[in-house]
Structures are given as C-alpha cells and as structure tokens.
C-alpha cells in the first residue's frame, strides 16, 4: 500500500495529537499528514447526546472526558495511552477548568507520559510554515482572530465574535420554521407544524449540502431587504430551491432564498458594526502600525465554517469594501490582503501543526511530564489569559445589554 508513512524524528511511537473542538474533535498520530478521525465532541449516555463542552461541574466533565478519550484510544486510534507522549491543540481562550480536567484525566486515569499544550492559532501557523500571521478561526461557537507576530500573539488586538457555525444553524432553523414546507404522506405541511423533524445533524447536513456564501453584489441587494427593510422585489433572482429528503418518505422543500441568505449571518453587521470580516480590520487597527502591512499580507483562515462554498472570495471582497468605510479609511493604509494557502482542510489545520510538533525532537522540552504534573499536583498556570479575556468579554456583553 503506498500509504504515506508518518515520520517521527524523536523515535517515540504513537504520539497522539488531539484537538477537541467545540463541535468536532480531530485526532490522529504525530508525523502523519492528516487526522485519523474527525468525530463529534460528544458522548452518548443512555441514547442522549452529551456535548463535552456542556458540563455543569468538573466531575461531570471528568467522567465525560474519560469515556470520550477511551473511545478515541481504543476504538479509533487503537494505541495504548500509558507512558506515551501527546500533543493537545487548544484555544487560547480555553477555560482553565477544561484544560485542568483534561490533564487530570490523561495523567491520572490514562497515565500518559507527557502532554504538550499548543495554542491552536499558533499551531495553524506552524502547519503552513510561517511565524507571522493574522489567524482567523471560524469555528462552531465563535470566530476568534489572533494576530501573531514573530510567534507571539498580539494579545491586545485579539478579536472574537460569537458568530460561527452555531449561529448559522440557528438562523437556518429559524428560516426553515418560518417558510419551509414538508411533503408527507398526508400532503404538504408547513415545517413549523412538525417541530421534531429537525436536529442539529440534519441542520448541519442542509448547511453543507445546500447553503453557500453568496457574492458581495447579491449580498448587498439581499441585505437591503433583510436588514434595512426594502421591498422584497429588490431581491436578486432566487437560486433554485432544493427538495431535501428527511427520514422516511418526508421531503423538506428548501427555498432558494434560505440557501442563499442563511450564511449572511456571518457578514451582517451587528449594532457595533461587527461582522466576521470587520474582525480582521479591527484587529489590524489595534496592532502597532509597523506590524499591520505584514499581517495583512499573511492572513490565515481556518475552521470548518470557512469551508462553505464562496466563503473565501466573499471575505476577501468584504475586506476591500469595508476598508472604504470612514471607520477604517484614514487609519488603515492597506492596499492588499493576502491569504495563505493551507496544506490541509480548514477544519484540521491546527491539528496538522500539532502533528508536526509532535514529530520533532524538541517535543519533550515543551511538554509537561506526568512526573512533574504529579509532583506539582496541577498544571503550572502559564496561561490565565483565557480568564482575563473571559471577564473582558463578559464586561463587553454587559455593556451591550445595557
């Protein structure tokens, strides 16, 4: 089999690389070119889906992670955890509760040898071989943008917006309930009368198979109507509708406007004129002037949501379009935005960076060993930034709600 064989320079075998995302977990073996599996970040308890990130307390999280990691080791990766090294990609804003519990499960229950915690945005840069970049991760619960200059995150310029996949699913559901119909054996019914026929997986399937990010030109006409209340005859000619088969013989009729309008949520500006593209410009504004050109020249877009058809093209046009706004016009002197080509799918770029790190001789020096962990009884608190950011975010939300 001409399979690409993973390369490990350190001689260590089966170093597990794990990226537990809000929606999906990417896992595999260091030195390989792609993850072995991408699975939902949840476990099933008595036929109920329990999401890993929805936990009431650390004990609950501990039990859930134990079950989840058991599945990863013994059903997917088929390797022994004991005394093996591992690499974990985590968000810069990962709550310390989560990482502490994860470390506890791995060190105490599975007895792994060592863990290297890597910041997902930095690992994304590792995966493309650069040190400086404006890394935007359009994930599940949020879009998080971190400018990184020569390997250091520019903390004060970090931008985040709670608009990503989850918001798309919500908008899709709302629109379907509002205008979609279902063909059943008993005739055609409005979808709103059958609240149980949708779940998150179906919504996601509808999104990836039917929805797309429309062109800037059409989007402007659409927003004129949907956001600013112009008459609906101003809408561009609708794209063809789709008949989407549901369970059994039911068929969901999805209107062309739903296909086209759903992903607009990423680009519609909120009351503070924030949208996914403006995060890039706002981050640049907050970065020191002498970094800006270089960062604009090194944009890296990751995250599963960025895989939507049309996303990149639209993002790029939006950047130039927004740049003309008074908010940025005189402050940002940028002629050109350049994006890095990835050597992976957007949804596992950080994982790939972790897989590269895991293959190097220097892994040990960047890892926390079980001995050190057991002696200290906890992880050394090198990263409290997440909490600082959290409180900052909460304050912002409070201000917003006022």
């Amino acid at each position, binding site marked *: 089999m001409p399979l690409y064989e993973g390369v490990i320079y350190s001689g260590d075998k089966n170093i597990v690389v794990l990226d537990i995302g809000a929606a999906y977990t990417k896992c595999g073996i260091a030195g390989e070119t792609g993850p072995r599996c991408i699975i939902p970040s949840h476990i099933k308890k008595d036929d109920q889906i329990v999401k890993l990130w929805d936990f009431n307390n650390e004990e609950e999280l501990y039990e859930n992670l134990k079950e989840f990691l058991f599945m990863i080791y013994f059903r997917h990766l088929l390797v022994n955890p004991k005394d093996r090294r591992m690499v974990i990609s985590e968000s810069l804003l990962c709550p310390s509760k989560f990482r502490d519990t994860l470390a506890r499960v791995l060190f105490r229950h599975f*007895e792994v040898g060592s863990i290297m915690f890597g910041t997902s945005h930095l690992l994304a840069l590792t995966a493309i071989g650069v040190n400086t970049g404006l890394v935007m991760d359009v994930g599940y619960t949020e879009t998080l943008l971190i400018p990184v200059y020569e390997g250091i*995150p520019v903390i004060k310029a970090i931008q985040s917006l709670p608009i990503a996949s989850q918001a798309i699913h919500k908008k899709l559901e709302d629109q379907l309930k509002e205008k979609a119909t279902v063909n059943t054996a008993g005739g055609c019914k409005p979808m709103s009368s059958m609240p149980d026929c949708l779940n998150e997986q179906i919504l996601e399937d509808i999104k990836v198979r039917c929805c797309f990010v*429309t062109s800037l030109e059409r989007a402007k006409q659409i927003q004129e109507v949907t956001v600013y209340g112009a008459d609906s005859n101003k809408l561009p000619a609708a794209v063809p509708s789709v008949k989407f088969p549901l369970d059994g013989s039911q068929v969901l009729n999805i209107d062309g406007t739903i296909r086209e309008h759903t992903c607009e949520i990423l680009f519609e500006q909120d009351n503070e004129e924030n949208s996914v593209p403006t995060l890039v410009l706002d981050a640049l504004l907050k970065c020191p002037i002498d970094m800006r050109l270089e960062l604009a020249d090194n944009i890296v877009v990751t995250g599963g949501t960025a895989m939507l058809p049309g996303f990149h093209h639209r993002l790029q046009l939006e950047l130039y379009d927004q740049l003309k706004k008074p908010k940025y016009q005189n402050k940002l002197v940028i002629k050109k935005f350049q994006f890095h080509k990835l*050597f992976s799918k957007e949804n596992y770029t950080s994982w*790939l960076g972790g897989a590269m790190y895991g293959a*190097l001789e*220097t892994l040990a020096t960047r890892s926390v060993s079980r001995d050190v962990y057991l002696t200290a009884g906890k992880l050394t608190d090198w990263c409290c930034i997440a909490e600082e950011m959290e409180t900052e975010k909460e304050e912002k939300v409070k201000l917003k709600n006022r």
Partner: protein
Amino acid sequence: MLIILLFNEMSLSGPQHCLKLKCSECLLNEVDSHYCPMCLENMSSSEAKLKKNRCGNCFDCPSCGHTLTTRATNVAISDPDDPGKSTPKKMYYMACGFCRWTTRDVAIDDKTVASGGWEDIENTHAKKIQSLLDYYHELALNEKAERERKKYVRRRSHLYYAASMDKYGMVTVAVKKKIGAMSNVSIKENEETTTQITTEEKISDFPALPDDFFTTPLELSKVTTITQRLASPEFQPTITNDLYPKRKHLLIRKSMRCKECEHNLIKPEMNPLSIKFKIQLVIMHHIPEVRLMAPMEFRFKKELKVVLLLINPVVHNTTVSLLPVDKESDSFSTAKIELPKKEVVLARRDDAAIYDDATQMHQEFKDEKNVVAFRKANKLGVIIKVTPLIQEGDVKVSFVLRHDYRNTAVVLPMENQEPQISWLQHRIFLNLGRIHKSK
C-alpha cells in the same frame, strides 16, 4: 454505572503480587491485538500502525459505510493481433450490497485481480508537509545543539521574546511571563538552517462561485453528506464523484492490567474467532456471591430476619464468616445487624451433582437452623437479623465477608504442589430496601 469487579491474580513467581478486588476504574486498559472484523485476520501492532489501523483486503462503502464486496465480470478484450477477434477476460470491481454504490459509479477502473489492486489516494499536500517537517527537524536539531551549548550560560530565549514584545509597548509586566511561556509553541527561527522552506504559497484572489451556480438546480444526490466527508478526514470529498473505497478499520481485543502490580487480569486469546480468554479473573468466578433473597417490609426499630443467599463459584468448599465492621468507620449503615457468630461452609460448585439430596448435605455440613435457612448445592441461605434505626429512607447495612481462597488461576511451579490458601476479606455494602410506610 455498571462496575465489573475483578479479582487480581496472585503470582507465586513474581516479586510483587496483590490479591485485591479491582473495579474497572483501577484497571489499565491495553490494546492486546489488532484484527479486522470482516476477514478476522490478525495484524501485528507495528503493521497496524503502518497501515493506519486498516485492513489490507477489506473495504467499506464510502457512501453508506457497509462492507463492499468484490464482483467479477467478463469483459471482452479485443485481440491486438487480430482486431476482429475478442477474448473474454475476468475483471473485478467492488459494490455495496446495501446502497448499491459501486466503484464504477465514480469511474474507478475495474481491476484485473480480485484483491490487492486497489490503491489508496494520496494526499496532494504530503510532499509539502514533508519538506516543512524536514525544515522544522533541522530547526529542532539546531535548537537542541544550542541548548546544550548554553547549558551554563544564562537562559535568555524567553526574555528575548518578552523584550521584543516590549518594543511595541504591548505587554504589561504581568503578562510577560505568560507570553514567554506561550512562545513555546513557535519554533525559533534560525538563520543557520540549510533547508529553505519553499512551501509558503499565498493567494490574493479567490475565485468567485461560477455564474451558473446561481441558476442551475442543485443535484443533491451529487453532494456528499457531512458523515461521508468526515469518514475520510484527510480528503473530505464534497461531491459524490470523489468518493473512494475506504479500507476497513481494524478492531482490537483489549486486555486489562492491575495498575498496582501490573499483572494481567483479563487477556483474550489471539484467535479473533475465539471468545475465550487466556486469563480471566473476574470476580464472579472467584469470590462468593452475596444476594438478597426477597424484598422485606422493614419498620423502624423492628427486628427482622433477613436471608442472604451466598453462592460459591469455585470447585472447592469455601469457609465463610460474616464479621461486623467498626461502628466509627461505618457511615453507611442505617440499621443494626446481628450476624451469625460461627463460620459456615459453602459447598463446592459441582455442575454434575445438582440433584444432591439436601438433607444429606445438611448433615454433612452440620448446619444450625438459626444460622442456615436452607442449603442447595453450592448455594446457602444465611440468616442475619436487621433492626432499622431510621424512620424513613433506605435500610442499609454493611459487614465484612471473610473466606478462604485457593488460587488456582496461576500455574504452579511444581506439580502436585498444593495451591496456597489465603484468607480474603471484603467489605460488603447492602441496600436492603426502603422503610415500609404504614398508613
């Protein structure tokens, strides 16, 4: 939560041994052997790693996940020497019996051999990833050498980063330390490398969606589902034309090991067809089972005789005594219990002799009526007296079960040597039921 209780092997040869009850929580799971669930072929762990845990012969349907079967067809091949003549030739393709997907659907050529002819698709980025890795490898080596050199010199790499941050006035003193630690993740650029990375590629113009995208009806059957995409994580095909047969994922047999003495408690046989275990030290095969006979009506401060059923799982008679626990250390019990003062003997398990005369057995074991309620084969009903001390809630009692145990699970070093007898004690916690509500 179901807890499997396991009983640890006692090794006579090894220096360490323990005879403790272990639950699934205090056991270490291990990958014992890899095998394919379809062809049941075993695979060594190094081969499994090389093949990324996938079988060399069996394939799954990329469309629905069921197993693909190989089909043979006869194809007429024209003879190059004589264009008028054609000879039939056997060709093979794969098809899914469940969703009817075939390798022909996606224009994969039929193969001339039944197996082994199916190549894997290659990751188009593999070369670039490899050259990037080579570059990092060199950096890492340099870093390692530098660290050796600077072992006695003051460390300054973290300071260096913090200082460069300061140039831009971005960091407060408080976060400097954290930033320093974070730069952990970036590999230090070093000019001394010989490998140049040529992987970096930038895009300044992404293509727009084609015009007909907005007017052509969407053919849903040609777009893959999220499940189909993620089933092939490295490639994530978006259109069904890009689906490709998936090699069957292997399964493993697990063994379990005691975390303390590292002895195997459960070890499966190598043969994937066998459901037997080489070693299986599950509690139900070694330790007398304690069961409650029938639900009772408990009342506050009213003494009741409760019959506990003891079952002997081993082929030797087992002497059992029930001992009280320290009142101070017992925060579990909600009732007072009176246990039999004398030890009782559980008859050995004898699968052949289930028709034994009960009275004869009573005599053999000299059972006392106030202690033994009944005896049948390897089962024994023991009477304990329970006085609930609560007015409502669960009636709970606790005691120690002490019994002799012959370790037959280990191979003895010498023939005819008597197995060692040990005395084991287990704390038993029993919930007997709720206090009866009288109206």
